[in-house]
């Protein structure tokens, strides 16, 4: 019997990538969802009690900040009108509960309490109030599954908020699990503590979602690029509630997929015919230039 199991396991190791397992995970998620909720109830009650005090303080602080932001918002709107820039569009957020985590050696995916019927679809970004957490990869009628930032298969186009330096965020297990901003040229200046957000070059995530802060800067082994270690904004060890927001818009008339950007008007008028080699109408960074 054990020889049969061993042979079957080896066979699965060889051909496992071609076996469709999504329906099995969907069945498992449906089966375990009520029990997951039950197990998590105690933990969440205790956490809710502790968080209550923190939230009261935070509300007071945010109310004060909100007053300041209102004034700045009015100023910003007036300035954008003067510069003829399109207005800001907020992100539509769907609240979801994180039911379970899975993955070795660190959790790389999460089961979410909402699915297609609740408006959560594959490709949606998953975030908390602190920042980006991951991306919905599978969606079933009432549940869904998301890959977290810690998934080695994730690669996210990001930029340093204050300077616009671009890079690709990946998880590295060597020598221990950490988030790295890679493909950053040595000539680009980055400082410890700067905020990193999703880039408008990203095909998968809306722009300007906080990802983390620069923790450490080093040279890559090749000596040609910088290796920037990022401290994640969202606390992945305390995932309970999160939000999903729609991913990029479907391919446009050119057939190229393009992201949704908050600064972009709902409907973009066709650009005026430009001479070959002329700079892009939207500025030097070319919002829809080379996409990752």
């Amino acid at each position, binding site marked *: 019997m054990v020889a049969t199991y061993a042979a079957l396991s080896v*066979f699965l*190791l060889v051909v496992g990538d071609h076996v469709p397992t999504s329906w099995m995970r969907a069945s498992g998620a449906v089966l375990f969802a009520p*029990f997951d909720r039950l197990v998590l109830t105690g933990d969440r009650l205790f956490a809710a009690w502790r968080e209550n005090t923190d939230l009261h303080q935070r509300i007071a602080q945010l109310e004060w900040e909100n007053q300041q932001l209102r004034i700045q918002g009015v100023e910003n709107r007036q300035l954008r009108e003067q510069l003829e820039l399109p207005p800001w569009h907020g992100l539509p957020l769907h609240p979801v509960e994180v039911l379970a*985590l899975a993955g070795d050696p660190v959790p790389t995916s999460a089961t979410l309490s909402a699915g297609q019927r609740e408006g959560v679809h594959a490709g949606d970004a998953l975030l908390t109030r602190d920042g980006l957490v991951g991306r919905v990869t599978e969606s079933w009628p009432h549940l869904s599954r998301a890959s977290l930032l810690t998934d080695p298969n994730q690669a996210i186009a990001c930029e340093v908020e204050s300077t616009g330096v671009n890079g690709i965020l990946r998880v590295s297990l060597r020598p221990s*699990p950490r988030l790295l901003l890679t493909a950053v040229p040595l000539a680009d200046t980055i400082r410890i503590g700067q905020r990193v957000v999703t880039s408008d070059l990203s095909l998968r995530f809306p722009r300007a979602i906080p990802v983390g802060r620069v923790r450490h800067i080093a040279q890559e082994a090749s000596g040609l690029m910088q290796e920037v270690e990022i401290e994640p904004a969202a606390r992945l060890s305390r995932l309970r509630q999160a939000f999903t927001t729609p991913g990029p818009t479907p391919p446009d008339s050119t057939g190229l997929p393009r992201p949704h950007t908050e600064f972009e008007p709902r409907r973009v008028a066709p650009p005026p015919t430009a001479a070959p080699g002329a700079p892009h109408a939207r500025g030097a960074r070319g919002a829809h230039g080379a996409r990752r």
Partner: protein
Amino acid sequence: MRPLGGFLLLAATVLLLRSTALSSLATRGLVVDALAFAIVVWSLRHGDLWGSSFGFFLGLVADVDAARWLGRHALALALLGYAVGRLSSTLVRESARTQFALLAIVTLVHQVWSSAFELGGGAAAAPWLLARALDATLITAAAGTLLLMTLRRALGRPLFGYAFGTASQD
């Protein structure tokens, strides 16, 4: 029929704990290998045939849940279940020292085997993964032995029975 009910109940409990409470602990660096613990307990109690079957089933579900390397846990746990099941008839199963040793060996083998798939062709992560496997081994063996001792005290009777009818010295 009774072992089958226990089989499903233990598997469901382990998988549930693994995806909720234990995964939260794992993100804080405290790794408890619930799969290894369940395999040792089940194989000690029911022998090699049930041990390998339970290991294969539990491993396969864990593989499907992880969505990568289908067969990784199934192979290791089926073989470990078989090995512990074979040993169960020659060991003093109620001995805390035996349980600690079995839990430590099974956890270490399982952790090293499953971590090897995460190396991705490079050995730079090996020290961290090995340290993590050793941590998991110590934590799982200590916590598992303590849990089994507590259960034995609470129930007031042996959990596994005695090998060849001999009394435990522990």
